[in-house]
């Protein structure tokens, strides 16, 4: 593929059609179009409305616990013996991951739009928990669609959602993972379009979702950028985040995109290796296609049928990726590299041992890349890893992988 001409800024997208270059768009059924146009209008008003900003900011501070800390991971840095590694501690947010940032923003939009019911899809359950949480807080009934396989491997989160009053509907189509949950959520939305707000958890889907989710998540990168300037007096050399659909990553990356000296790397789920189909590295092993309302890199066969993929991490187990990532990949601004299940597992254990932090398996993929590159970097160089969530939800999966019974 030809490389497009380098833009003056990497932060101006999407265009009016919701496109990031050739990616993004609004590939949805006609039933949803009027609603998506309404949502875009409401979002355009809200993002410049001081009252909306003030309400979101107050909730972020007093309810979610922002700003999250930028923590110097001294133990890991010593262990690796190279660059200084910092963790952006999204795991310390209320509900245990970055997902709350987006849910708070969108629930306020749902309220502005007068919607009566919330639906969401979830993979690892982190977005489901965050959706159930804001629904409880604002008094909405909430239905969460979750792949049946994910319901099995993320039982603690399923229970949390139920406690929070949400209804969890397992989806057994396909491999029973995030893709299938999203199909089912879209079917619900098409059916209940009048009163239902679809709270998409990742920076994908039809325009304006990719932009909106990015903007709600960009608080991560904005804070991290200010914090590293405050703590180190300079910008980092490298920023790393894991990419499933890509919401934590785009939130971390976006504020750094025009800092050309900062190298940015997104980590895809390499699963059991890219040679077969047991991975979810859509940008390394897929090609552009159209699914779930947007054009983006997808894992698919030569007939355009979508593949299921695999990852040890339920949050990365998605055959697509947010369209802005696809554009950043093709433009060359961000590199996307795979990390294997085993490498993530090793990072999970190491982080736990030397930092006393149990990271989510998704975040462990990002740590694993730091483990590879930090030792080769100079001691005065700086790496920021987005620790997007905590790993309590993953202990069952990890125990199984280690051959242990809980």
């Amino acid at each position, binding site marked *: 593929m030809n490389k497009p001409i380098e833009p003056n800024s990497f932060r101006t997208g999407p265009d009016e059609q919701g496109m990031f270059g050739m990616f993004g768009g609004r590939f949805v059924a006609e*039933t949803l179009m009027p609603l998506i146009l309404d949502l875009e209008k409401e979002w355009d008003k809200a993002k410049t409305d001081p009252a909306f900003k003030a309400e979101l900011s107050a909730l972020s501070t007093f309810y979610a616990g922002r700003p999250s800390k930028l923590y110097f991971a001294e133990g890991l840095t010593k262990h690796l013996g190279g660059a200084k590694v910092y963790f952006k501690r999204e795991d310390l947010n209320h509900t245990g991951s970055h997902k709350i940032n987006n849910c708070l923003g969108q629930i306020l939009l749902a309220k502005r739009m007068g919607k009566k019911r919330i639906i969401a899809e979830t993979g690892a359950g982190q977005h489901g928990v965050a959706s159930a949480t804001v629904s409880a807080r604002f008094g909405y009934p909430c239905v969460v669609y979750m792949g049946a396989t994910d319901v099995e491997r993320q039982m603690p989160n399923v229970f949390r959602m139920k406690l929070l009053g949400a209804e969890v509907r397992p989806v057994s189509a396909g491999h029973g993972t995030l893709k299938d949950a999203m199909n089912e959520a879209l079917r619900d939305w098409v059916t209940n379009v009048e009163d239902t707000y679809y709270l998409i958890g990742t920076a994908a889907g039809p325009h304006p979702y990719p932009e909106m989710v990015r903007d709600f998540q960009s608080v991560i990168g904005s804070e991290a950028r200010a914090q590293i300037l405050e703590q180190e007096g300079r910008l980092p050399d490298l920023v790393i985040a894991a990419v499933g659909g890509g919401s934590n990553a785009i939130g971390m990356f976006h504020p750094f995109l025009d800092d050309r000296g900062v190298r940015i790397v997104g980590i895809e789920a390499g699963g059991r290796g890219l040679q077969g189909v047991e991975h979810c590295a859509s940008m390394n092993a897929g090609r552009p296609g159209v699914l779930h309302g947007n054009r983006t890199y997808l894992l698919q066969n030569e007939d355009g049928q979508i593949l299921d993929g695999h990852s040890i991490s339920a949050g990365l187990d998605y055959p697509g990726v947010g369209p802005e990532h696809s554009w950043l990949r093709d433009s060359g601004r961000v590199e996307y590299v795979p990390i294997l299940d085993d490498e993530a597992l090793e990072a999970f254990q190491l982080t736990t041992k030397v930092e006393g932090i149990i990271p989510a398996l998704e975040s462990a993929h990002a740590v694993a890349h730091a483990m590879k590159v930090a030792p080769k970097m100079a001691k005065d160089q700086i790496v920021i890893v987005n620790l997007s969530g905590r790993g309590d939800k993953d202990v069952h999966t990890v125990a199984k992988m280690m051959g242990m019974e809980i």
Partner: protein
Amino acid sequence: MTTRIDRRFAKLRAEGRPALVTYFMGGDPDYATSLSIMKALPKAGSDVIELGMPFSDPMADGPAIQAAGLRALKAGQTLAKTLAMAAEFRKGDDETPIVMMGYYNPIYIYGVERFLADARAAGVDGLIVVDLPPEMDGELCIPAVEAGINFIRLATPTTDDRRLPKVLENTSGFVYYVSMTGITGAALADTAKVEEAVKRIKGHTGLPVCVGFGVKTAEQARAIGASADGVVVGTAIVNAVANALGPDGKAAADPAEAVSALVDGLARGVRAARLQPAS
């Protein structure tokens, strides 16, 4: 330029009855059986054929059509084979319009230009692509119209008078009115409401308006056909195929016969639609 679709609706208008539009899934349960179903449709009274293109992630379809698509894919159906099926059908029938219906990604991967050339060569007359709203007309709709293939748009209860002109702008062949917000195969909407919606759409276009989503019986076909120019039946046909399969997924009874029996009844329904005044 007129297509088989235009000619068929003109003929039916002269006969004073609505069209029976039948959807089936290409390649379900396998290529050969599916082709025999397709060939049986006009004989049983179908006026327009919607040939389903299977897709792994049919976001606007209910369980019946989802399952049919998966059966077809499992049996090895591809877009190339669905096109081949249309071409094979055309050898024996040069009049019944074929509308290919499905989702965009397989077409996008096949290549829009190549797809349109092959579809035209196969004798395909129209396309319904669920996930291409007018906002994305540059992708396939405009090239299709330029290639002489009708692009048939879905209008829904959420398509209000403000939006209708945009939806109708590049539509040709007919308008497919989806009688409710929802996925395929759900319950039928109130016929009075459907009648009102058809009138509303006809106020914006001279194109025939066909109504679908939820029509399963001859009686429903008759009731909807009283006001609409065509009645679309999909899930009921797909279910007739599914019911003819044994536990191993192979045809136990003859699916083409089962579909014929159903379509024959539906055809009687649409033929009776205008015999009495619409209630």
